């Protein structure tokens, strides 16, 4: 027996080792339903011990390798870093310029989109124009636009933005035009205080302020009240935003009118894109349609003449003659309807229902007796600055188009 073991020692040891390994292997192989390939036991401990013993060595080697690799990349292999840094800085500068340019483009797109929306809502014909220059002087507040007669622009056309009115076309050239801003001292426009429905005349000033004249001092005007165009001047479509009241005071010259200063709705000092109203539609812009029923008194207040402020002819000639004359024609129409005597040049507010409407109640005085005769409605063609005084033989406003 001893001879057998000594003779077959090697195969026996081999079989023993293989047997042990097969048994160890068999303990790891589970039936499929057991759900686990290896359970807790000696074999698992062997794996845990071995991995635990080797893992720190592996981690140390990996950390060391990373250390050398990072050291090489971060401190040694830097021969192209300066060039790359220069290139990246150049690229960054280019990107910044590109960003600024794109920002400008985006701003312009926003403005043009707002302009387009306004144009689509507006019932009428307009021509979009770009502001290309200004007068460069405080004595004359004008801007140059890049549309002229070739685009259908004619003098006295209204120039507006979605924010509000800007001015009117003064001089027209082939490919550009000059726009007289509403804050120029020669400008004028008929306006309405939106809440109180008081009519007035928008004028510019030498200082560039906007003010509404011809509102009696006994009227109540609130600061912040919006002002819209009346449409009576036949230059600006009715209902466009003009601005808001920022200051109300008595006339510094002791006159019977209020000095109402307003803030323009349009950014007159930052104009870039504008619309030239080439055709005034019958319907007003959507913004003016507040849905409230219109009273006959309101319609009459627009159609009938209102009182004309007794100013010196020189000033009257330069300060928005169109609006002034339109208001005067309205006032004269009312004079024939209700010729009750009152102080010269005064207007009275006739309260109807819960609101007040301004109906011109002109006074018959020797000074304006000749002007109280009816005057036909002003035609859109003549320039407001060139409007002539009414003639005595003109037809009364009854022949005008009936109010809506």
């Amino acid at each position: 027996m001893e001879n057998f073991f000594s003779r077959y020692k090697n195969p026996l040891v081999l079989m023993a080792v293989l047997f042990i390994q097969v048994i160890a292997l068999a303990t790891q192989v589970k039936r499929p339903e057991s759900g686990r390939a290896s359970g807790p036991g000696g074999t698992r401990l062997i794996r845990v011990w071995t991995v635990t013993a080797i893992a720190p060595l592996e981690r140390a080697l990996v950390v060391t390798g990373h250390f050398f690799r990072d050291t090489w990349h971060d401190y040694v292999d830097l021969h192209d870093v300066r060039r790359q840094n220069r290139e990246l800085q150049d690229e960054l500068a280019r990107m910044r310029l590109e960003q600024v340019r794109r920002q400008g483009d985006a701003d312009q797109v926003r403005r043009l989109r707002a302009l387009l929306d306004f144009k689509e809502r507006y019932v009428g014909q307009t021509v979009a124009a770009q502001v290309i220059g200004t007068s460069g002087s405080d004595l004359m507040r004008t801007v140059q636009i890049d549309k002229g007669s070739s685009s259908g622009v004619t003098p006295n056309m209204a120039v507006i933005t979605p924010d509000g009115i800007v001015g009117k076309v003064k001089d027209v050239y082939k490919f550009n035009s000059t726009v007289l801003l509403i804050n120029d001292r020669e400008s004028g426009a008929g306006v309405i205080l939106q809440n109180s429905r008081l009519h007035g005349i928008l004028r510019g000033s030498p200082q560039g302020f906007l003010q509404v004249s011809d509102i009696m001092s006994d009227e109540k005007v609130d600061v912040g009240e919006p002002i819209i165009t009346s449409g009576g001047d036949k230059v600006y479509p009715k209902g466009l935003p003009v601005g808001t009241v920022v200051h109300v005071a008595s006339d510094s010259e002791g006159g019977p009118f209020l000095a109402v200063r307003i803030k323009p709705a349009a950014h007159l000092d930052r104009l870039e894109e504008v619309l030239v109203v080439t055709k005034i539609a019958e319907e007003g812009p959507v913004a003016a349609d507040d849905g409230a029923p219109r009273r006959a008194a309101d319609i009459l207040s627009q159609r009938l003449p209102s009182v004309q402020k007794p100013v010196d002819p020189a000033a009257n000639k330069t300060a928005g003659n169109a609006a002034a004359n339109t208001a005067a024609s309205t006032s004269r129409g009312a004079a024939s309807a209700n010729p009750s005597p009152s102080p010269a040049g005064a207007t009275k507010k006739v309260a109807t229902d819960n609101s007040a409407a301004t109906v011109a109640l002109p006074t018959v005085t020797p000074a304006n007796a000749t002007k109280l005769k009816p005057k036909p409605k002003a035609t859109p063609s003549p320039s407001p600055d060139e409007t002539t005084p009414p003639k005595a033989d003109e037809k009364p406003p009854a022949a005008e188009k009936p109010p809506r």
Partner: protein
Amino acid sequence: MNYAVSMTSREEIEVHRFSWPVSIGIPLLAIFIQVFVSKWLTFIKIFDLPLLVTIFFAVARRRPIPGLVTGALIGTVQDVFSSPVIGLNGIAKTMIGYLASSLGVRIDVENPGSRFIMTFVFCILHRIIYMIIDLGLVGGNEPWLWGHTVLSAIVNALLAVALFAVLDRFKLR
């Protein structure tokens, strides 16, 4: 009575010894390279360095029991890291270690040609044993790829020629 038949031309069979650091360090280094370095150098996966080390030590020692024990230990440690079931490489390398040491007694395994052929045959045999255990005992379904097996055997045989020449320097006479 010695029944061993030697096919070597030498009159005396040299039995080599190795120092303990070499006996432990080289197998561990082989396993480490095979298991961890192959994560980054994927071409190493075609080699089987633990098998080559097993063959080298078994042939050099020319004693079956140390050869099979060496193969069992190396294979088991390799299984710990690279096999879902511990024992596949252990059993295969145990048999290879036993056969290699038995063969080293009979033939000259010192020249490169015989080393190449021997390693090629053992690589194929190792793969066959591994697949038999995997299919028969574990129930695995790893496919048998002849092309890959032969290519791997050739590559390992070529590497063995160079590797064994290096490892010969660690032999103690």
